[in-house]
């Protein structure tokens, strides 16, 4: 297959997939549609995680904190400010994540490797404890229920958010906007600066790059997107509990990213979708889904280093051979 036809085929596949994704509400049962929504939200979350993991080389064990911040801010806004527009709520939640990212980043960014991983975890545990014990504000262990507002678009009529299909389309648009923004962000000079600092921090500083500030920008941007996904999650679930901010959340996103493949921009999104699908499927069979997910994780780390997405990347080697040789890229 020559390049040209390959190129065309790629666009054909993308167009086909887009169409299928768009008509999900028409063809899927409500239960399956909920699953699809969850896949969307976690795709954005995993993409935000990978922004930090791949482009700054930082592995945070506390990324769930920002998901939780976005979620709690959204729930509080919904509950305490009636009639607050939906889009404004999402923006405020995401910006809250950004601000928290700047603040927490100030403490974490100077550290590397395991130290970075654990200090980010420490901040997450602190926030978790806060959410757990501040019952009057957060509802503690019981969590908080929220009412889902309708989407009030200017110049257009109100779009009801009672309808599952509308919720799906709304979240689809936000998630795609987030991921596309991420994609274009990676083409800009600032993203180049981020990679530059990851590649060779010392040399980058001698060229005038400020490693601390560059990484902080990336960290807060990742927090922004994580909070946005957390916000969407609460909007969709109509509930927030401490489980949105606990350790599971932080580790799940690591698993999703590694399973999907951190080397490709869409790897984490694929990983998140697969993760949710597989977990749903397994939890129908057994209640020990973590065990199976753990085995899947080990398999990917050992035999498919580039993650599941690397299966699609290797046109020449062929999928089977890649599997046997176990050398993803």
């Amino acid at each position, binding site marked *: 297959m020559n390049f040209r036809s390959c190129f065309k085929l790629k666009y054909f596949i993308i167009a086909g997939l887009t169409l299928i994704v768009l008509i999900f509400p028409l063809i899927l049962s409500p239960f399956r549609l909920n699953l699809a929504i969850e896949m969307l939200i976690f795709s954005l979350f995993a993409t935000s995680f990978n922004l930090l993991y791949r482009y700054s080389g930082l592995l945070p064990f506390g990324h769930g904190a920002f998901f939780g911040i976005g979620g709690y801010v959204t729930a509080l806004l919904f509950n305490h400010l009636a009639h607050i527009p939906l889009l404004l709520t999402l923006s405020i939640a995401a910006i809250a994540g950004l601000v928290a990212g700047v603040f927490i980043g100030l403490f974490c960014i100077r550290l590397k490797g395991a130290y970075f991983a654990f200090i980010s975890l420490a901040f997450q545990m602190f926030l978790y404890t806060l959410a757990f014990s501040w019952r009057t504000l957060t509802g503690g262990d019981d969590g908080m229920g929220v009412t889902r507002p309708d989407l009030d678009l200017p110049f257009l009529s109100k779009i009801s958010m009672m309808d599952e299909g509308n919720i799906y389309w709304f979240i689809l648009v936000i998630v795609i906007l987030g991921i596309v923004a991420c994609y*274009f*962000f990676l*083409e*800009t*000079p*600032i*993203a*180049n*600066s981020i*990679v*530059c600092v990851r*590649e*060779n921090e*010392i*040399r*980058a*500083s*001698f*060229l*005038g*790059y*400020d*490693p601390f*500030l*560059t990484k902080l*920008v990336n960290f807060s941007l990742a927090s922004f997107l994580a909070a946005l996904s957390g916000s969407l999650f609460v909007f969709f679930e109509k509930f927030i509990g401490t489980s949105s901010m606990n350790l599971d959340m932080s580790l799940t996103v690591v698993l999703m990213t590694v399973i999907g493949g951190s080397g490709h921009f869409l790897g984490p999104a694929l990983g998140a979708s697969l993760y949710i699908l597989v977990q749903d499927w397994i939890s129908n069979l057994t209640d020990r889904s973590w065990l199976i997910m753990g085995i899947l994780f080990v398999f990917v780390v050992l035999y498919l280093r580039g993650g599941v997405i690397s299966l699609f990347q290797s046109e020449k080697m062929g999928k089977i051979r890649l599997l046997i040789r176990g050398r993803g890229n």
Partner: protein
Amino acid sequence: MKTAALKIEKVSKSFSGLQILDRIDIDICKGERHAIIGPNGAGKSTLFNIITGLHRPSSGRLFFFGNDITRKSIHKIARLGICRSFQIINVFPEMSVLENVRNAIVSKFDRRFNWLSFLNSDEKINKEANRILDLCELGDVKNSPASQLSYGLQRKLELALVIAPDPILILLDEPTAGLNVEETRDAIKLIRQVTEGKTLVIIEHDMEVVFSLADRITVLNFGKILVTGTPDQIRMSKEVKDAYLGRE
């Protein structure tokens, strides 16, 4: 008298008690080519590390055109127009040659935090990067990853990264280390060409290079300045002969 581009004032450095530099005083004039020579362990690279902010001096101060840069961080010193090369190749290994040079150009144009343009389609940056590549004779390999270049070409890339930001003061740390005679000759020609009109401080072991390139030479030995002077003065100096040249 010319203005001092870089004034090093009584700079000392010790690492856990070991005195590496002992009250170094050097004035680098604007536009001059200054060589620093001395046996291994004399403190030449440490001096570079102190000038560029990688290490803080234990005492003493540094001025760049009158600006105190003693306690400034690396990137701030770099942005003032001081750029250095490294004794051991220190580039962005996973990036292509073009991307390597582009990193320096982006920084030069102060576009480090720019998020409203696309780097690949930015004509100004790419044009400038290509100009530097041609200047350093790297145009043919611009799309190869830096790590796959031959040693000689990596040295050229190292030099390209130094001159790309268009610095005022260039510090070269053994730019010909590991090159053969012919490559060394090429490298010197290139250095001479690209540092035209700039201030240059160079650490070098090759005496032929030093004496042909430098306007002034400082000889370091055990962290102390033995003598500073023109190549002729150095050649005649008895101290230098005893300590350094005489051993050959």
